[in-house]
């Protein structure tokens, strides 16, 4: 919200602080100044004096000539807004191009009105500084609890409290006619409108506002319309009470009714849009139909026009929640609704009306008396607080006297009977946000200054304990993957229905009821679905060699709690592991992926025996080149080559290896306790065995035979490692060659060749049992 220094001084005549310092003061008090405007930024062109001549009045509009330093511009102005011939008018000059204030510049456009120079001036004169003065405009961010500061008066009170200056409200005078209003008022919804006042004005002269009003509204970012509308707006900006002026002549039955709308009732609002109303909305109506949406916006038909001759001026209090709901439902947040939903000062309602009457002066004749329904709600908020507690809350010392001074300055009334431990205060009518002792502490702290709070570190002992197992494991896995050269990514978890459907039925998945767009309307059930976009961006930008990983949650509908979230780890690899292309053999393959997973499971604390990899398909994986990982027979994840359909659809140029692990499972699974292994220092004996097997035979089968022989015969074996695998060449059709190495080592003694050879014979004998297996009798020993 904008405030002008000039208007502020109307409420705080003794204010004498440079604009910059005022901005700092407000910010440090909780009214954050976002921007300081200079007047030239709002009126960006030099303002000059021009003469109006040859005015010809038409039926729809008047034509005239504007003379300026020998130049002549022809203009069209709405009849009501065309000043008398020979008037001196204000023109904004942009390098020879005239802007006819307040609006318009285009030649063919019909200007609403022209503004005359408010003092004697010569044509051709530049009067920018005379017109604008040295005002400063501050753009303030007002927090949701401080509706009272959505006004110059409210800001003035804040500044006054800090600087110890008296604030004042401009006096108002106006004359009433003898005749009372010939209107009646009926409030059918006192629950949503506790207080409604109306003033009837006759003999209205609707005319352009004088320059000072145009200037001030422009400073505040409001558009000048005509004197009646402008004064109600100006007073709202000054006092914070929204007002509305209805053209009284269109109010049917000379009756104003405050009521709930009927379901489906329609109203065209001031902005020209037809609104369909619901029975929860409060409207101002006449005998027949709504003429305004209470606290939000008036109706188009009752708008004040140049032809309006009588006005019904409304000042009321509407229920905050009701206004908020209505404004939200209709998608129209207005200056008025913003103030009502934060609460207005019940004690300034009629003052605001009277100030409009005062400003209108002879331009309208108020009927005698007021139309009133209800009364200003009187919620007396008394708060007792202990000054000692306030000091304990703030963490700095403030004297009792200063506390009282601050609160008095902010408009709190101190109960004179307050003695000793506690002070009782009555909160001012405009501070509905204050009702607890901590609220008082904040008020005192704000004005005393947060900069005076003495910083210290909390003075108690707390043992944070060991890091949560899950958090710790996640940390270790991330660090390992980064050490291995993978890059961590964060993908966007909301996906399109089309992608979601690839994974499963809609029934299993979580749909966002109010998405920003269809493309982001499902929560990812699988990390691959959200990472595809990332893979694509990198592929299209020609980034061909990378390893990526993400730890994030996937979501699914659940049984007990309606929604389930599960932490997963996703890995994607493509291209070369080692960048130098001049050295071959660095390509990513499925065994790199498998190895990475084995490393991760090792870090997570699982024994090799618990882990099992099985050939299996999986979501998004090429069925013939993918696997499942099990930990103690429980599925822990899947991986493999990204399916060719994804590759095709997403336009990836190369194979991508992906895997996804269930992190929650890795964390909750019981892990073996640590057992120290003796370091064996006796020498090892190594034997290589080569064999031919049927093409379909998998290494795991051979390994199992070897391992079972080893354990049955209680052999002293350290490792069984495959070191060669090939087909073709001198290997017969339909067969393949496995070569593996067995390392024998005893923890107690040096093994001799004879016993090792015996063991090797036993292993071979068992292997020979397998159908289709042939030993290659070339043994290499070391």
């Amino acid at each position: 919200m904008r405030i002008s220094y000039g208007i502020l001084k109307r409420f705080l005549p003794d204010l004498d602080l440079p604009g910059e310092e005022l901005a700092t003061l407000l910010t440090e008090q909780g009214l954050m100044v976002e921007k300081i405007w200079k007047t030239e930024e709002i009126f960006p062109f030099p303002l000059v004096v021009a003469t109006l001549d040859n005015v010809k009045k038409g039926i729809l509009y008047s034509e005239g000539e504007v003379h300026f330093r020998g130049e002549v511009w022809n203009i069209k102005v709405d009849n009501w807004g065309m000043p008398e011939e020979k008037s001196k008018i204000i023109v904004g000059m942009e390098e020879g191009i005239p802007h006819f204030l307040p609006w318009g510049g285009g030649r063919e456009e019909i200007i609403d009105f022209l503004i005359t120079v408010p003092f004697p001036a010569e044509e051709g004169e530049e009067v920018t500084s005379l017109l604008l003065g040295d005002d400063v405009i501050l753009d303030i961010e007002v927090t949701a609890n401080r509706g009272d500061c959505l006004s110059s008066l409210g800001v003035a009170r804040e500044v006054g409290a800090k600087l110890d200056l008296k604030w004042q409200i401009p006096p108002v005078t106006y004359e009433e006619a003898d005749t009372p209003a010939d209107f009646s008022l009926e409030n059918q919804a006192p629950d949503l409108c506790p207080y409604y006042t109306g003033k009837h004005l006759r003999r209205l002269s609707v005319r352009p506002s004088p320059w000072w009003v145009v200037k001030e509204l422009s400073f505040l970012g409001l558009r000048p319309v005509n004197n009646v509308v402008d004064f109600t707006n100006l007073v709202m900006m000054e006092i914070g009470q929204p007002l509305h002026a209805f053209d009284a002549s269109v109010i049917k039955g000379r009756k104003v009714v405050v009521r709930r709308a009927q379901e489906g009732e329609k109203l065209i609002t001031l902005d020209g849009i037809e609104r369909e109303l619901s029975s929860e909305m409060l409207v101002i109506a006449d005998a027949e139909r709504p003429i305004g949406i209470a606290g939000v916006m008036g109706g188009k038909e009752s708008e004040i026009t140049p032809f309006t001759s009588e006005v019904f001026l409304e000042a009321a209090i509407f229920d905050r929640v009701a206004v908020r709901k209505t404004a939200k439902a209709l998608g129209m947040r207005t200056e008025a609704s913003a103030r009502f939903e934060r609460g207005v000062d019940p004690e300034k309602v009629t003052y605001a009306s009277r100030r409009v009457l005062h400003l209108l002066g002879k331009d309208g004749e108020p009927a005698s008396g007021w139309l009133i329904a209800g009364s200003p709600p009187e919620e007396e908020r008394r708060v007792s607080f202990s000054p000692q507690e306030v000091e304990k809350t703030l963490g700095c010392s403030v004297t009792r006297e200063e506390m009282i001074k601050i609160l008095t300055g902010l408009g709190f009334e101190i109960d004179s009977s307050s003695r000793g431990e506690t002070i009782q205060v009555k909160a001012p009518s405009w501070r509905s946000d204050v009702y607890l002792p901590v609220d008082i502490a904040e008020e005192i702290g704000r004005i005393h200054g947060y900069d005076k709070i003495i910083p210290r570190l909390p003075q108690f002992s707390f043992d944070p304990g060991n890091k949560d197992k899950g958090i710790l494991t996640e940390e270790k896995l991330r660090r390992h993957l980064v050490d291995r050269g993978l890059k961590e990514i964060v993908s966007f978890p909301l996906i399109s229905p089309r992608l979601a459907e690839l994974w499963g039925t809609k029934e299993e998945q979580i749909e966002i009821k109010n998405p920003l767009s269809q493309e982001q309307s499902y929560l990812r059930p699988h990390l691959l679905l959200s990472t595809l976009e990332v893979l694509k961006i990198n592929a299209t930008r020609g980034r061909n060699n990378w390893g990526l990983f993400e730890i994030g949650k996937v979501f699914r509908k659940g049984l007990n709690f309606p929604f389930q979230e599960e932490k997963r780890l996703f890995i994607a690899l493509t291209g070369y592991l080692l960048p130098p292309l001049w050295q071959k053999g660095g390509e990513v393959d499925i065994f790199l992926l498998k190895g990475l997973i084995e490393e991760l499971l090792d870090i997570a604390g699982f024994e090799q025996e618990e882990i099992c990899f099985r050939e299996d398909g999986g979501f998004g994986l090429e069925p013939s080149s993918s696997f499942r990982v099990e930990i103690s027979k429980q599925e822990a994840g899947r991986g493999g080559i990204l399916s060719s359909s994804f590759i095709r659809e997403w336009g990836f140029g190369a194979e991508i290896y992906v895997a996804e692990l269930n992190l929650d499972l890795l964390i909750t699974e019981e892990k073996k306790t640590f057992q120290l292994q003796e370091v064996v220092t006796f020498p090892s004996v190594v034997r290589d065995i080569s064999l031919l097997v049927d093409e379909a035979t998998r290494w795991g089968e051979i390994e199992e035979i070897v391992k079972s022989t080893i354990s049955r015969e209680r052999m002293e074996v350290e490792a069984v490692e495959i070191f060669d695998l090939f087909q073709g060449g001198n290997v017969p059709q339909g067969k393949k060659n496995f070569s593996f190495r067995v390392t024998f080592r005893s923890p107690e003694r040096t093994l001799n060749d004879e016993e090792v050879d015996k063991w090797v014979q036993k292993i071979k004998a068992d292997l020979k049992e397998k159908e289709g297996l042939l030993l290659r009798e070339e043994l290499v020993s070391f």
Partner: protein
Amino acid sequence: MRELEEYWESFQEELREVNTLSDWNYLKGKYVGKKSRWGEFLSELKELPAEEKRVWGRKINQLKREMEELLEKKYQELLSTEEKSEIDITLPGKKGWSGSFHPVLLTRDWILAIFESLGFRIEEGPEIETEFYNFEALNIPPDHPARDDQDSFYLAPGYLLRTHTSPAQIRVMEKMEPPFKVVVPGKCYRRDAFDATHSPMFHQIEGLVVAEDISMGDLKGTLETFVRRFFGEERKTRFRPGYFPFTEPSAEVDVSCGVCGGKGCRSCGYSGWLEILGCGLVHPQVFVHAGYDPQKVRGFAFGMGVERITMLKFGIKDIRWFLENDVQFLEQFKIF
């Protein structure tokens, strides 16, 4: 000065013996490096009569220059006669991929590490929340204007994606016994369309300290320590009043702009300050919702947006780069 002649002769003699680069290096150190005697000769010069001083002075300079020239010549000679190597070490090394942490998570970890060192415990909370935890328990009833700033994604009546990490305050209070200090990192979601500074998904870190005696002073001290450690000693902190329904008193914390040092520039909107987090003392009503007696405990809470802090820290201009995950962007964020 006689020694100068000897020095020159011994240099020439030794130079002839030089066959390897290491010999050469030794010689260079001895005759033109720190171990050389030129300083000695120059200081002797001072004691000579003016006339001689000039002659010897010129001589010293000439010999020194000549020595340097001869050394350079020898170096080139050695290079050309060096034995041909078996390897071409100019070929690229087998350097592995360079891994990196996501900048937002790197920043998150960094922030968490600071709070851990201050004795905080790390906790986590769910991303799908109930309205009770996300709003009501935090003193944000339906139709509270504060809900406008946190437009949420609903999954079903009463269920939504958390709009901030603050619901973790309630969950932590339900789970733990005071006194305690915790920080809770996590993803949050709001119905904000993507632009340079907004994303519908972002990360926050929530902090909560509850004990018998906690004041705004504890809050200020803790957060000032954090700012100094994270942004650097030279950066200033400003506490100013703010508003959050779940804290009272509330404050916003600004850090002085690192670009202009607080004078005001484009990156700080000419204010000299950058807003980094919101905080305050736990509102008594929040304690009531969490089952605590507000007469017996006090606490402070804070919440910060990790993306924003990451952008400030690394000078990143667009929040969308974080979700784009271009590897060229990512690989810059190594372990620090």
